C-alpha cells in the first residue's frame, strides 16, 4: 500500500492517477479472530487501529452492516472540542484533542483537522458565571480556555445579532482556540486504512444477528453471512447499542433518538470558526466547500429512522436565524439525521459488560465525533488489558446504581434532555 | 373597584390596515364576562353537577360542541375539566372533589371575522378550518404560534380565540401579519 506523500501524489499524477492501490482490502473473513469489533464507524475502526498499533493485537476483524463510516460518523457536524467540565469527561476529551492534533501524521491520511476555535455564547450573567466555572476547570487541567466579553465577541463575530432589543442578547462567550472541525469521512477512511495496513480485516455489508455462546460466555458472532468466532467481542454501534445488547440479554440505560443536521448552499467564506448558541441547542460552522453546517435539538422521540421531522427543521432554522439573521437568505442544500445513543446522564460507556467476552462502547449521545480517537484508544486498552484506562475509568455501565452519574447538563435520567 | 385592563391595550388601534378596499378580516378584542374553570377526578360527573345546575346547563357536553344557555357559554375541555364564560362567581363550589379556578384575569378574547377569516386562521393553526368541518358552535383547543389557545366558531365567518394574556400580543401580531394582505379592520373592544 502506498505511503501518501507529496512525492507519491506527484508520481501517481504522472501516471494519470491510474496506479493508486486500494486504501483497504475487502478480504474473505477468517473463521475466528482474537477480537471482533461490531461497527465500522469511526469508533470501531479507531479501536481496531489502536489495538494493532498500541497493543500489537492484529488478528482483529471489524464487522459493519452497511458501508464503513455510513452511520453517525458520516452524519455529524464535524465539531471537535475538549471543553467538558465533569470529572470523568474532562481528561478523556482532552486525550482525544491531543490525538486529533497529530492524527493526520499518525494515520498518514489527511483528516483535515482545522483548529479554528469554538465559541460557546452566553446570554445572561448566570451563563457567564457557568462559563467562567467551566473555563477554570479546563485551565486547572491544562486545557486552553478564554472568556470574552460582549465587545470582544462582537469584534470577532460581527455577523451575529447585537441589536439593542435582540431576543437573546450576547453577554459574552467562552472560547477554546484549539477546538475546531475535522473531515468526518476522512477519519473513518484514515483509521480504516491504518488498521488494514496493520493486518485488521474490515468486513462490510455484514450484519450481526446474534452471538455464539459457550456457557455464559460470548465466543463469537452470528451474521447474515455466517458465523465468526472471537476471543472477545467489542460493540461500537452507537445508535444501535440497545439493539445489539438485547441479543446478549442486556438492557442498557440508553434510548435511541434522532438528530438532524443541515448544510446550506456554498457561500463565500464567512464563518471561520465554530459557534454554539447559548440560548438554544444550536451550532454552526462553515465547511471548506463553503456550505454552512448546522445542527440543533433532537427530534425528542425515540427513533431509528435516520430521518427527522419538519417541526425540528423549523425549530433549528429559527435558532439559526436568531443567532445569525443573515443566514435566512441562504438555501438549504441537504438535510439528514443520525441515530443517537442517548444515555441516562448524557455521558458515554467504554466498559466491560456483565457478560463475559462482551465489551461496550456506546452512549455517546450527540457528542461522539470529537471523541473518536480517544474512544478507540481507550476501548482498545479496555479490551486488550480487560480493564479500563484511567481516562475511561468513570464510563462504566454500573455508575447509575452507585450514584456516580456524569451529568454535564444536570438533567437527570431523561435521555432526550441531555 | 379595580379596573381590568386588556393585555391588548397597546395593540388595539381602530382603523383600516393593509390592503385597501373592503377589509377581508375584522380583528377585535372582546372583554370576557368572566371565565371559570372547574376540574376534578374520577367522580367529576357527580362533582360538576351542582355547577351545571346553577348555570342552567344539563350535561357536561361534548369535546367539540360548545354549550350556550342564558348568560353562560360552556366548553368541555377534557374528560374531567370544563370552562365557563359567566359573570357568576363559582368560588362557592370549590370542594375536595372539585377545583374551581377563576381565569378571568388569565385569558383574553380575540375576535376574528370576515370573508377571509377562515383562511387566515388556517395559516396559523394546524387543524382543518373548512366551513363543513369547523361549524358555528364548535370549538377546538390547539397551538397557534406555539401558544395553547381555544378557538370557538361563533358564526359562518366568525371566530373567538381565548388566549393566555401573557401571549396575547404575540398571537395578535401573528394574526395581524397574516391578515395584512387581505385588508384588516380593527374594531374597538365590544
Amino acid at each position: 500500500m502506498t505511503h501518501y506523500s507529496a512525492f507519491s501524489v506527484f508520481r501517481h499524477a504522472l501516471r494519470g492517477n491510474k496506479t493508486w492501490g486500494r486504501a483497504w482490502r475487502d478480504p474473505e473473513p477468517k473463521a475466528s479472530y482474537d477480537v471482533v469489533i461490531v461497527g465500522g464507524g469511526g469508533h470501531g475502526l479507531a479501536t481496531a487501529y489502536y489495538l494493532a498499533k498500541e497493543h500489537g493485537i492484529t488478528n482483529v476483524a471489524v464487522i459493519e452492516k452497511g458501508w464503513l463510516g455510513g452511520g453517525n460518523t458520516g452524519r455529524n457536524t464535524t465539531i471537535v472540542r475538549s471543553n467538558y467540565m465533569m470529572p470523568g469527561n474532562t481528561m478523556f476529551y482532552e486525550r482525544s484533542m491531543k490525538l486529533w492534533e497529530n492524527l493526520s501524521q499518525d494515520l498518514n491520511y489527511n483528516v483535515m483537522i482545522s483548529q479554528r476555535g469554538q465559541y460557546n455564547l452566553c446570554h445572561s450573567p448566570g451563563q457567564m458565571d457557568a462559563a467562567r466555572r467551566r473555563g477554570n476547570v479546563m485551565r486547572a487541567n491544562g486545557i486552553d480556555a478564554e472568556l470574552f466579553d460582549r465587545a470582544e465577541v462582537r469584534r470577532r463575530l460581527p455577523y451575529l445579532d447585537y441589536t439593542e432589543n435582540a431576543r437573546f442578547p450576547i453577554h459574552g462567550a467562552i472560547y477554546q482556540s484549539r477546538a475546531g472541525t475535522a473531515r468526518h469521512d476522512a477519519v473513518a477512511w484514515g483509521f480504516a486504512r491504518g488498521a488494514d495496513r496493520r493486518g485488521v480485516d474490515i468486513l462490510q455489508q455484514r450484519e450481526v444477528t446474534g452471538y455464539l455462546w459457550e456457557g455464559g460466555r460470548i465466543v463469537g458472532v452470528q451474521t447474515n453471512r455466517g458465523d465468526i468466532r472471537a476471543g472477545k467481542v467489542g460493540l461500537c454501534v452507537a445508535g444501535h447499542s440497545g439493539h445489539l445488547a438485547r441479543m446478549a440479554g442486556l438492557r442498557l440505560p440508553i434510548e435511541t433518538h434522532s438528530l438532524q443536521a443541515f448544510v446550506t448552499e456554498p457561500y463565500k467564506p464567512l464563518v471561520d470558526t465554530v459557534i454554539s448558541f447559548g440560548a438554544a441547542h444550536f451550532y454552526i460552522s462553515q465547511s471548506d466547500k463553503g456550505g454552512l453546517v448546522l445542527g440543533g435539538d433532537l427530534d425528542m422521540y425515540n427513533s431509528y429512522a435516520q430521518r427527522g421531522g419538519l417541526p425540528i427543521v423549523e425549530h433549528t432554522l429559527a435558532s439559526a436565524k436568531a443567532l445569525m439573521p443573515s443566514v435566512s437568505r441562504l438555501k438549504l442544500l441537504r438535510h439528514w439525521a443520525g441515530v443517537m445513543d442517548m444515555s441516562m446522564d448524557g455521558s458515554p460507556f467504554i466498559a466491560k459488560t456483565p457478560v463475559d467476552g462482551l465489551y461496550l462502547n456506546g452512549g455517546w449521545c450527540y457528542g461522539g465525533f470529537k471523541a473518536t480517537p480517544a474512544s478507540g484508544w481507550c476501548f482498545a486498552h479496555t479490551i486488550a488489558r480487560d480493564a479500563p484506562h484511567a481516562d475511561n475509568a468513570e464510563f462504566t455501565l454500573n455508575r447509575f446504581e452507585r450514584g456516580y452519574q456524569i451529568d454535564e447538563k444536570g438533567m437527570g435520567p431523561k435521555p432526550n434532555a441531555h | 373597584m379595580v379596573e381590568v385592563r386588556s393585555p391588548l391595550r397597546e395593540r388595539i388601534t381602530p382603523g383600516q390596515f393593509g390592503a385597501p378596499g373592503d377589509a377581508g378580516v375584522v380583528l377585535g378584542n372582546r372583554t370576557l364576562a368572566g371565565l371559570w374553570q372547574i376540574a376534578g377526578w374520577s367522580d367529576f360527573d357527580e362533582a360538576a353537577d351542582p355547577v351545571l345546575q346553577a348555570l342552567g346547563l344539563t350535561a357536561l357536553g361534548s369535546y367539540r360542541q360548545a354549550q350556550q344557555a342564558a348568560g353562560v357559554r360552556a366548553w368541555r375541555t377534557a374528560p374531567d375539566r370544563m370552562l365557563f364564560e359567566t359573570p357568576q362567581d363559582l368560588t362557592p363550589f370549590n370542594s375536595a372533589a372539585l377545583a374551581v379556578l377563576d381565569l378571568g384575569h388569565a385569558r383574553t378574547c380575540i375576535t376574528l371575522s370576515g370573508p377571509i377569516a377562515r383562511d387566515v386562521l388556517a395559516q396559523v393553526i394546524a387543524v382543518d378550518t373548512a366551513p363543513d368541518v369547523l361549524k358555528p358552535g364548535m370549538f377546538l383547543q390547539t397551538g397557534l404560534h406555539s401558544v395553547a389557545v381555544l378557538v370557538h366558531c361563533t358564526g359562518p365567518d366568525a371566530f373567538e380565540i381565548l388566549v393566555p394574556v401573557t401571549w396575547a400580543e404575540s398571537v395578535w401580531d401573528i394574526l395581524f401579519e397574516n391578515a395584512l394582505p387581505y385588508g384588516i379592520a380593527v374594531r374597538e373592544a365590544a
Partner: protein
Amino acid sequence: MIRINCPICGLRSETEFTYGEDASVTRPAMDESAAQPWLDYVFNRDNPRGWHREYWHHAQGCRQWLVLERNTLTHEIGTCRLAREDAA
C-alpha cells in the same frame, strides 16, 4: 410529520404534543426495597427498534396524557389511548 389521533381532540399534528417517556416500564411498589426493580424502572430501557409504547402529553390541546404505540423505525402510529384508560 407525525400525526397523533388524540381520543379527545381527533387527529392532530405532533407539534401540539410533548414526548413523555417509555410507557413500557413498570413502577415498583413504594415499599419495594430491592435495588434492581428501581434501577430497571429509572435507568434501563428495552429501546426497541420497532413498536414502542410511550407517553405523549397533548400540551397544546386537551392536556391529557396519552399512551401511543409507535414504530420507532418507520414512525407508523398504532393505537392511541388516554393514559388513564391504558392503566385500567
